[in-house]
């Protein structure tokens, strides 16, 4: 058994390095874009609520429903469904480039929800104190909401990253490569259990690392 692994490593070493890079690229790029969009939407979801800074039931409801719709689609379905959109944005549907659009469309609404709940955790009293001292609405968003919610935001992004790693494994279907793709093609289709196990081990390690990093960072930010 051990020999199998060693053989598998010497045979496919480059493949693993390559596939980890691909996974890293897909997850990294999609995460940055999704976080920017998700955080923005999360803020909009919170401030357009009733009795909030920019109360606006129409904007809130449209956003709320749209996010719910996107969130109800499994990644594999979403990916296929938005092929035209992907083509339009990146000019093709193949490779890492082709995977990023569906990954963002899948992850951004998820992050928006996670950000929403993190922002709602912020103490109303603190917001009120800033209103009382004459802060503008935008100052309240940047100086109170976004600052006080940092631990929750970091935890949310951690959760989203792990979800993203999972979804990225399915992006192999469009030829984006990555660990998931290797696991399917070599581990399953060619029936090489050593490759399958190696991919699983890598995925587990990456997820563990991401979670630990997120937890530690959030703990540092949480000053309570």
């Amino acid at each position, binding site marked *: 058994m051990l020999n199998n692994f060693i053989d598998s490593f010497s045979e496919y070493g480059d493949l693993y390095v390559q596939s980890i890079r691909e996974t890293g690229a897909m997850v990294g790029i999609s995460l940055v874009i999704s976080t920017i969009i998700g955080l923005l939407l999360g803020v909009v979801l919170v401030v357009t609520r009733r009795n909030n800074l920019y109360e606006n039931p129409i904007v809130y409801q449209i956003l709320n429903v749209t996010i719910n719709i996107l969130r109800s689609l499994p990644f594999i379905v979403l990916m296929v469904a938005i092929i035209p959109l992907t083509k339009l944005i990146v000019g093709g549907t193949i490779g890492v480039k082709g995977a990023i659009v569906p990954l963002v469309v899948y992850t951004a609404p998820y992050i928006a929800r996670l950000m929403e709940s993190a922002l709602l955790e912020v103490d109303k009293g*603190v917001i009120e104190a800033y209103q009382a*001292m004459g802060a503008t609405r935008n100052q309240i968003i940047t100086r*109170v909401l976004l*600052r006080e919610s*940092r631990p929750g935001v970091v935890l949310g992004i951690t959760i989203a990253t792990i979800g993203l790693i999972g979804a990225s494994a399915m992006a192999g279907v469009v030829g984006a490569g990555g660990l998931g793709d290797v696991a399917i093609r070599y581990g399953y289709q060619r029936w090489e259990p050593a490759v399958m196990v190696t991919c699983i081990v890598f995925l587990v390690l990456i997820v563990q690392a991401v979670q630990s990093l997120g937890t530690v960072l959030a703990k540092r930010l949480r*000053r309570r």
Partner: protein
Amino acid sequence: MSKVIQLEQISKRYYQGKREIDAVKNVTLDVQKGEIFGIIGYSGAGKSTLIRCVNFLEQPTSGSVRINGIELEGLKRAELRAVRRRIGMIFQNFNLLSSINVFDNVAAPLQLVKTPKEAITKKVRELLDLVGLTDKEESFPHQLSGGQKQRVAIARALASDPEILLCDEATSALDPQTTESILDLLLEINRKYKITIMLITHEMHVIKKICDRVAVMENGEVVEQGTVMDIISAPQQPITKNFIKSIFDVTLPSVLLNKLENDKRPGKILRISFVGENAADPILADLATQFTLRPTILYGNITQIKETIFGCLIIGVTGEASAIEAGIDYLTQQQLRIEVIEHAE
């Protein structure tokens, strides 16, 4: 004296589903420059709603709020912010930002208006010195005690040099000793910076210790208002009497009452309230020598209201009816408030 805060016919109605909640009903009151004005009432009386109307954190359903003569209704956002910067506010739960340190918390109002860094540092140090937290600049709120947090909140509220300080149950989350020190600090701020203070509380002790005038709130309405001395020495409403009982019990203990009920000797029971210098006059001796009455002390209580001594003495006097009348007249002439207590108070 000028009126810094003028509330006229303020009402606030909330809707909870179909239910209407009248949190504040037709409240009219003025706060004078430099005074400490207290509002006392039980939980749910509408105190927080009322004080939040003063800086328009809550917009009244009807009525007028004027700050230094400026009507807040109809102000543009920027104008309202300018008014709010002249009004500091502190809260029961301190409401500090947990993610930034003490220095930055105190600096917040100055940073909002882009004050130069050196000016901020100077001001923050000065305020931390005032509230006695010079060594806590770098600490985060969670590393401080409740009293220290409230001191930080006070420093923050004073950073923009406000004319008015609003206090929403500022000491209600604190233990008695810490409460004392925070009240002392508020008094010092009031005197040193001539800041007008409006505070709300459910503790009569707070009113007695630092307020000049007080309004009593019940079910959204102000049921009684006046100087603290007047309210304590002659409360009119049952709720006011209840509050006063908590700091200064002027009712006779029941054991004593029973004994008096069965006392058949001719005479009267008097409650004598005295304020300030009168406290030292030998009135009992005078009653005995000038009117040949026989006064007996039944019960006494003395307290300090802000700087003034206020006392209350319940005495029994026996003697001829006419002499008793003359004695009461004499006491009244001494600037004492006399009440004849019929039995069973």
